[in-house]
C-alpha cells in the first residue's frame, strides 16, 4: 500500500496580537506569561474570517501544489472545533469554493486539536481501497479562549490542507498509528462560547501520555527510533510542551525547530501539528523522514511516519508561500481591535 501527500497548503491570517498586549490588559506579568508559555504572539482571524474561509484558502493552495484538477477530488473532510455552523457542513463550502465536481463525499470532523489528522487518516483509507482517487483533508480553526483564561494567550487562527492519494506523491505516508483514551482534559459543552480545561491535568495524563504513546507506538510498528527521523512535529498547544516531549522521546532540538510554529502564531487547534508538518514540507529534502504526532483533548494522538519523495523537488510542488514567510506577513493589533474581530464584544 503506497499512499501519501500529493499536495499541501497552509493559511495563516495576517493579524497578530502579542502575548504582552493580552497580559497587560489583565494585569499579568507579560514577560513571565510569554516565557511560561513559550509564545510571543498569536495569529488572529479578521472579522470576516472563520474556519470555513481559512479551510478554503488552505485547500486552494493544496490543490495548486498537487497540480491536480479539483474535479478529481472524491472526498473532503474538514476538522475543526470552531465551525461557523453547528449544523451545516464546512466541507461543502470548501468543495464549491475550489470548484470541485459534486461527485464527492464530505463530512466535518471534531476531535479537539486532532480532527485534521483524523481527516488525513480517513482519506488514506479511502484512497488505499480505491474508493476515491484523491481526498482533501483539512484542519482549520479560529481557536477560542475565554478572556483572561490561560487559553486566551495561546488560542490562534490558521489551518492546513492536504491532498491525499496514491500517485505523484511528494511524501509517502509509511504508516499511521493512533492512541486514544477517554480523558476529560479540555471540553466545550453545547451552546457554550468558550472551552474549559483541567489546568495542570492537561499535561501529564493528557498531552504527554498520548503524544508519547503515539510516537512510541508508531516507531515500534515501523521498527524505527528517534535517530531514523530528520524532523519531529508534535502537536503544539504552547511553545514549551513540544520541546519537552521531543527531549523525552530522544529527538535533538534541531529536529523540531522547522515545524515549531506555535511561538509565532499560537495554538491553531486542528491546524496546529499539520501547519508544523506543512512547514517541514516547505524545506524537507527527498529521502528525509518526518514523525508527526497530533494530540486532541478528550483524548487521542494520531502518529504518522512520513518519507519525502523526490517529486517534492519538482517546480511548484511546494506551496507558493512557505509557512515561515506567511508568519512574517503580519500586522499587530491591540486588545480592543482583537476583541472586535474575534467578536468578544457584546453587541446586544
Amino acid at each position, binding site marked *: 500500500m503506497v499512499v501519501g501527500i500529493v499536495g499541501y497548503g497552509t493559511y495563516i491570517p495576517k493579524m497578530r496580537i502579542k502575548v504582552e498586549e493580552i497580559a497587560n490588559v489583565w494585569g499579568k506579568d507579560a514577560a513571565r506569561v510569554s516565557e511560561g508559555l513559550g509564545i510571543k504572539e498569536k495569529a488572529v482571524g479578521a*472579522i470576516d474570517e*472563520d474556519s470555513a474561509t481559512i479551510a478554503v484558502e488552505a485547500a486552494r493552495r493544496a490543490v495548486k501544489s498537487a497540480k491536480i484538477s479539483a474535479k478529481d477530488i472524491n472526498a473532503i473532510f474538514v476538522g475543526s472545533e470552531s465551525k461557523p*455552523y453547528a449544523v451545516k457542513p464546512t466541507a461543502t463550502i470548501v468543495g*464549491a*469554493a475550489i*470548484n470541485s465536481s459534486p461527485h464527492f463525499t464530505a463530512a466535518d470532523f471534531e476531535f479537539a486539536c486532532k480532527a485534521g489528522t483524523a481527516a488525513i487518516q480517513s482519506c488514506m483509507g479511502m484512497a488505499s481501497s480505491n474508493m476515491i482517487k484523491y481526498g482533501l483533508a483539512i484542519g482549520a480553526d479560529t481557536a477560542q479562549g475565554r478572556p483572561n483564561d490561560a487559553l486566551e494567550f495561546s488560542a490562534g487562527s490558521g489551518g492546513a490542507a492536504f491532498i491525499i492519494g496514491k500517485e505523484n506523491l511528494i511524501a509517502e505516508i509509511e504508516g499511521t498509528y493512533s492512541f486514544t483514551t477517554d480523558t476529560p482534559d479540555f471540553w466545550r459543552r453545547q451552546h457554550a462560547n468558550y472551552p474549559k480545561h483541567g489546568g495542570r491535568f492537561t499535561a501529564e495524563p493528557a498531552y504527554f501520555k498520548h503524544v508519547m504513546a503515539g510516537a512510541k507506538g508508531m516507531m515500534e510498528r515501523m521498527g524505527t527510533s528517534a535517530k531514523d527521523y530528520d524532523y519531529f512535529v508534535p502537536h503544539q498547544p504552547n511553545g514549551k510542551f513540544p520541546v519537552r516531549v521531543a527531549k523525552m522521546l530522544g529527538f535533538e532540538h534541531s529536529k523540531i525547530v522547522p515545524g515549531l510554529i506555535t511561538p509565532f502564531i499560537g495554538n491553531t487547534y486542528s491546524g496546529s501539528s499539520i501547519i508544523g508538518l506543512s512547514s517541514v514540507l516547505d524545506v524537507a529534502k527527498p529521502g528525509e523522514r518526518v514523525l508527526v504526532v497530533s494530540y486532541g483533548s478528550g483524548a487521542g494522538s494520531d502518529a504518522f511516519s512520513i518519507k519525502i519523495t523526490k517529486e517534492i523537488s519538482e517546480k511548484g510542488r511546494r506551496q507558493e508561500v512557505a509557512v515561515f514567510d506567511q508568519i512574517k506577513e503580519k500586522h499587530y493589533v491591540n486588545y480592543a481591535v482583537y476583541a472586535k474581530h474575534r467578536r468578544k464584544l457584546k453587541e446586544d
Partner: protein
Amino acid sequence: MKNAIPLIWRRIPERYALMGTVCENCKTEYFPKRMFCAKCRRKGRVVEKQMPDEGKIFSFSEVHVAPTGHESEAPYFLAIIELKNGVRLMSQIVDSEKEKIKFGSPVKMMFRKITEDDHDGTIAYGYKFKVV
C-alpha cells in the same frame, strides 16, 4: 438584515469560484455570467468559464459610512478590479495597507464572509481581494 437563501445559493458559483461565461464565437467574457452574447446575439455560443483570480485595481474608494450589516468593518476600501482577462468587478479590499491601495496595484482573490444574518442565520461567503 436577512440573507435571501435562494439568492445567495444561486450566486455561489459566481461568488465562491468567480464563475462567469464566455461566448465561444467572439471570445467575449462575461462576469457575472450572461447566458446571451450581447455582440453575437443569436449567433453566440455562451458557455461557463472561470475567471482569473488575479488582476489590478482600476478604481477605489474608502467607505466610512457602511451599509447595514457592514458597520463593524468600516472604514474599508471598495474597488473596481480589472481581472487579467479584462473583466471588471467590484469588491472589498482586505488585508492590505492603506498606502498600497493605488490605481494599478496588483490584487489576488481571497475567500471571506460577505454578510451574515443574526447569530442563528445563514452566512454568505464570497470573493474579496487583497493587494499582493
